[in-house]
């Protein structure tokens, strides 16, 4: 056991855990952040996607000892019911979520992608950005539309602010 300190969704945390425990398990079991899901456990499905220092990664393949002093953002950090992000609202509006198991992973991947661009992405661009996330329900079309409409909305909102 070791005390490992890092930041999750803006809060500093200290967890007591074997350093070789996957970050995903620590988020879910120690920190009660159950948005991130385990599905394949080996990097193939993206349901466990979180951001570390802004980059999307599979938290099932990161050991908690590797994130000491780093900044982690999960789907809960993108937004909760009371302060939903435009992206999450777009998923609801477009009907981009069905069973919902894959959704937190998609939200984090899409958020990290949208943070890096300042235009409305083409369908191809969204497909590349979300290629590491699998969904067995929606057929993807609505997910792609949701990401595009969130991009559109954020651009208009920024335009209003400026």
């Amino acid at each position, binding site marked *: 056991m070791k005390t490992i300190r890092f930041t999750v969704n803006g809060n500093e945390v200290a967890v007591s855990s*074997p350093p070789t425990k996957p970050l995903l*398990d620590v988020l879910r079991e120690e920190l009660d952040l159950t948005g991130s899901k385990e599905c394949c456990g080996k990097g193939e499905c993206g349901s466990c996607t979180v951001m570390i220092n802004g980059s999307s990664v599979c938290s099932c393949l*990161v050991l908690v000892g*590797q994130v000491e002093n780093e900044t982690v953002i999960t789907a809960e950090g993108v937004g909760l019911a009371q302060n939903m992000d435009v992206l999450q609202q777009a998923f609801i509006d477009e009907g981009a979520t069905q069973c919902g198991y894959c959704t937190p992973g998609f939200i984090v991947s899409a958020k990290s992608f949208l943070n890096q661009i300042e235009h409305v992405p083409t369908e191809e661009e969204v497909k590349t950005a979300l*290629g*590491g996330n699998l969904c067995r329900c929606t057929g993807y079309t609505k997910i792609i539309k949701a990401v595009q409409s969130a991009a559109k909305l954020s651009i208009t909102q920024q335009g209003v602010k400026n």
Partner: protein
Amino acid sequence: MKVSEATLVSPSTLDECLLLLNDQKHSVQLLAGGTDAVVRMKEGVWNPDTWINIKNLDALRYIEEVNHEIHIGALTSHTDLVESKLINERADVLAQAAKEIGAIQLQNMGTIGGNIATASPAGDTIPALFVLDAKIELRSLTDTRLIPIREIFTGPGRTVKKSDEIITKIIIRSQDEDEIGIFEKLGPRKAQSISIVNVAISLKMGEKPRECLEGKIAFGSVAPTIIRATKCEYMLKLNPLFDDVIHDIASAAWKEVMPISDVRASAKYRRNMASSLLERGLYRLMKRWEEQ
């Protein structure tokens, strides 16, 4: 998921890391992006006493031009390669190979050093490193050696790297204006797929239309380690690379590769695809060259 009993240490400097690697009493293993290592750890295949976490050894994460060469730190991520202006301009084939690795999450996590050390016959950066004449720097507490990439791999999953050594640096040729490269890959799914066949091509072009002065071709996944297609390389120089010549060169690739059948594809399919990928790659390169 079963938690490994192993300990994990995070050295803050390379020297500290070399000291840890020198430990004779315990089994130790390096852990970089973890995209191969954690999968194997979970499968129970890799279970050292201690994992040496080098993910945050930023001193080994850089891309820089030195004289006429490019030096790449072993902890450079695939995303770093994809986004690097220098790599895109002077080693385009490597940028393209890195872009074909897994999905974005995997490119953010995985490192070039890890891709080499894993030594998979399907590793995507490796054929690109072959055609760029890469040299790999290995360091231990007492020694530093620079090994040409063709001497690194001794079989699937095996390299000449000793247990107390770490890959510190990869040195590649910086391509001139008259050199172009391309990476082509066939896998079952665009993102996240292990190559069934891949090929890296680098050509030095002459003054005359489609005249090739010299070329290098390296195939992955069609032999126990990466192979250079030397007969095809020889043919590149014989005639200008018009479409019928490209077709002949690609047909010759059929005889140069020696693939196996496995769960992902049969040997015959791999042979056919090796020819097709080479043909497509050369064809695309010529189009790009003429549009330049």
